[in-house]
């Protein structure tokens, strides 16, 4: 059985806890999710029951002057984005929306984005989703409600379960509520776009931008095919400035001067910049077809060019680079051979990979993320047991047998 056919989607946290406690008592695995928009990621969960947080929703605290917002896990992310936008603020990690990649129709939830620790282009400078999770409430695998962190901006009281649960894909606990730090949204956005001949020049241009004193908030390189999907005629290195209007004008001009050593440069205005980075955020330049598998590789930025070259030599790869070259998006044939090439390229660069999307047989057959060395894998198993002693929460989502 691929998907669970018994769905529980309680409104109240107590009912979520009760559902987990019941599954724990029965030793029955649960597929834990929000709206299930990311079910196509990573490994498939084999579970008879499905526990969703989608009905446990609503913003429970928003204090703009204190830079915090708190909401129940099932709250659609777009509701949170709209609420903070109304007060001139934004979510710092610029979480992406991959519903086009996953052919998802329902809106992704706050809990889902945090459980997957998904971050957008701003991650290179302002940190990942997990960096701005100030507090969580969650239900562990025995049905106990546990909290970590809180609603204040600095907190080192006890072990940081906010970070551990972010990116744990519902395998340790069911996140029921999240408090995020937010910041004022920039008054203006500008982008320097430099036409660079190849990935090496592109990444060098981005390193110059990121090593400049101008506070670049995103840095991506698109080869010509990816660039053409966003209306450029050549491969292009892109560096973003977000600030007050006069600062954006000043900084983009200075930045273009520094980046023109790598190719001729243009400055994109506010509207064009916002549209462009939204597309980069959501992996639009990849242009993946429905049949293709999609991977993300995280490597040191300067290794991005070599990774791109290796992938292109190995298979018919469509790709682009974000995070200064350190995030390699690639689409290619959904075959074990292509996956092996991705693994090899990531290992050679000392980085990691994630199989973001693929048909079920491939997801079951390969390591969707790098296996941990034995000592660390043993710690993972013990930590999993510390939260979920009977292994009922999203078993097998990250690693076979965990």
């Amino acid at each position, binding site marked *: 059985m691929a998907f669970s056919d018994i769905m529980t989607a309680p409104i109240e946290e107590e009912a979520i806890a009760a559902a987990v406690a019941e599954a724990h008592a029965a030793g029955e695995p649960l597929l834990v999710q929000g709206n299930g928009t990311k079910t196509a990621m990573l490994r498939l969960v084999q579970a008879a029951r499905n526990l969703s947080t989608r009905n446990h929703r609503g913003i429970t605290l928003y204090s703009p002057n204190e830079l915090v917002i708190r909401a129940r896990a099932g709250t659609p992310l777009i509701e949170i984005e709209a609420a903070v936008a109304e007060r001139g603020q934004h979510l710092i990690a610029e979480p992406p929306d991959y519903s086009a990649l996953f052919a998802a129709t329902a809106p992704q939830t706050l809990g889902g984005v945090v459980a997957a620790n998904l971050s957008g282009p701003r991650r290179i400078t302002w940190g990942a989703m997990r960096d701005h999770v100030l507090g969580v409430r969650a239900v562990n695998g025995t049905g106990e409600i546990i909290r*970590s962190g809180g609603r204040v901006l600095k907190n080192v009281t006890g072990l940081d379960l906010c970070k551990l649960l972010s990116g744990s894909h519902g395998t340790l606990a069911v996140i029921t509520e999240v408090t995020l730090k937010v910041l004022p949204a920039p008054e203006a956005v500008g982008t320097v776009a430099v036409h660079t001949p190849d990935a090496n020049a592109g990444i060098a241009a981005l390193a110059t931008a990121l090593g400049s004193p101008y506070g670049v908030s995103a840095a991506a390189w698109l080869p010509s095919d990816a660039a053409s999907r966003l209306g450029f005629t050549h491969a292009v290195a892109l560096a973003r400035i977000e600030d007050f209007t006069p600062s954006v004008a000043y900084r983009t001009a200075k930045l273009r001067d520094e980046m023109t050593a790598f190719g001729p440069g243009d400055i994109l205005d506010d509207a064009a910049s916002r549209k462009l980075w939204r597309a980069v955020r959501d992996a639009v330049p990849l242009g993946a077809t429905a049949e293709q598998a999609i991977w993300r590789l995280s490597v040191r930025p300067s290794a991005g060019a070599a990774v791109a070259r290796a992938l292109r030599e190995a298979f018919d790869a469509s790709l682009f680079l974000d995070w200064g070259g350190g995030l390699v998006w690639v689409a290619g044939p959904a075959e074990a051979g292509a996956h092996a090439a991705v693994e090899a390229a990531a290992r050679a660069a000392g980085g990691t990979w994630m199989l973001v999307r693929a048909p079920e047989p491939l997801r079951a057959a390969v390591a969707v993320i790098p296996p941990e060395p034995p000592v660390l894998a043993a710690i993972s198993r013990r930590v999993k047991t510390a939260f979920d002693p009977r292994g009922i929460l999203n078993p097998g989502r990250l690693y076979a047998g965990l």
Partner: protein
Amino acid sequence: MLRLPDPKPEVLARREAIVAGLRALLPDEAVIAEPLRLRPYETDGLTAYRQPPLAVVLPSSTEQVAAVLRLCHTEGVRVVPRGAGTSLSGGALPLADAVVLGLMRMNRILEIDYADRFAVVQAGVTNLGITQAVAEHGFFYAPDPSSQLACMIGGNVAMNSGGAHCLKYGVTANNLLGLTIVTTEGEVLRIGGTHLDAAGYDWLGLLTGSEGQLAVVTEVTVRILRAPEGARAMLAAFRSNEVAGACVDAIISSGIIPVALEFMDRPAIHACEAFAHAGYPLDAEAMLIIEVEGSMVEQDALLDRLRTICEKHDPISLKVSQTPEESLAIWKGRKGAFGAIGRISPDYLCMDGVIPTSRLPDVLRRIGEMSNSYDLQVANIFHAGDGNLHPLIMFDANDPESFAKAEAFGADVLKLCVEVGGCLTGEHGVGVEKRDLMPTQFTAAELEQQRRIKSAFDPDWLLNPHKVFPLAA
């Protein structure tokens, strides 16, 4: 006074053999067991607590750390990791049956990469040492705890240290890429690397701020940032804490996030001025130091907007620095705050609670009331942008009653922080100091969950076992 766990008699009985075992692993001068030479290691920044350890080892490589941990694991010996010993929460306080694992000899910078913007350093490199190593290329390491001249990056990782500039740049956890750790069994593990997103569980995030409970950090890969074109500070003085608090709110809601936003109350202003002669206004009840970054033109624009906001709050005085030297003068008093308080009262407890910033005036009023009822002076220094409060409670260490009162006062302040929606510690860590207050913030189930994670890394509870978690009954 907090209770420490009883020493294991079987370990004390084997003291000679254990020391001999350590000497077999390390060069002679790297093992200290003579009582007089153990004295410097008996306490840290929380000097009210003192306990000489069984021995001190000073390894100079990850392999030596692993060898020591393997031996201690086999022998069932507790281990207390130590950096510079600057912890204000007793994070490096030894136990009588413990080996102190001092990392200060691991003080080499291993790699600096400006293109990929990271540095790999050993755990005993000082916080400021990292910035000094990259400053000539215009880079810096962002977290800047007050002790940055002395404190070491390994300790910063253990405590998830912050500083005055974390409103913009984040704390230690937000500025790391990778760690080399050694487990309690002596296994060496690399966590993260030089890339941004690790796969699997966020061990880097969990280990940061884990106060030496889970593993020993020997190498750290930090992100380094290019410094902005320039920075300048302004000083604004107000008639009351309430007005200064309202001004902080107005600044944040204006859309400006200053790189630093520091708050000092009247006793802190007076102490710092007497010490540093920074030109602080002595007739003010509260004072803000506000710093912005950018080109000179950008700084001018931001400082103009901030001045306009401050002017709406009936300031006693406003001083916008025109040069980096004037900015340094404004910062001089704040940076010397601990020394300044030390001149008034040789002994003080530096608290570290965090509150929602909107509760600032109310919390300061109640701390004032506590100061009266305990009859102990307090000065408040506050990272206003992020709600991290540092009340400095002054007492007389020669008077046990005075110290007991100071501890009770501090505990009341921290309970108040939790009561108004905040937390016990923002950047100093729980250590021994706040260990027994943990149940005010966490339920029994929550503490048990954390203990089980500790056990997953350290099944025998050999690593810093007397910190963070209230002792089992």
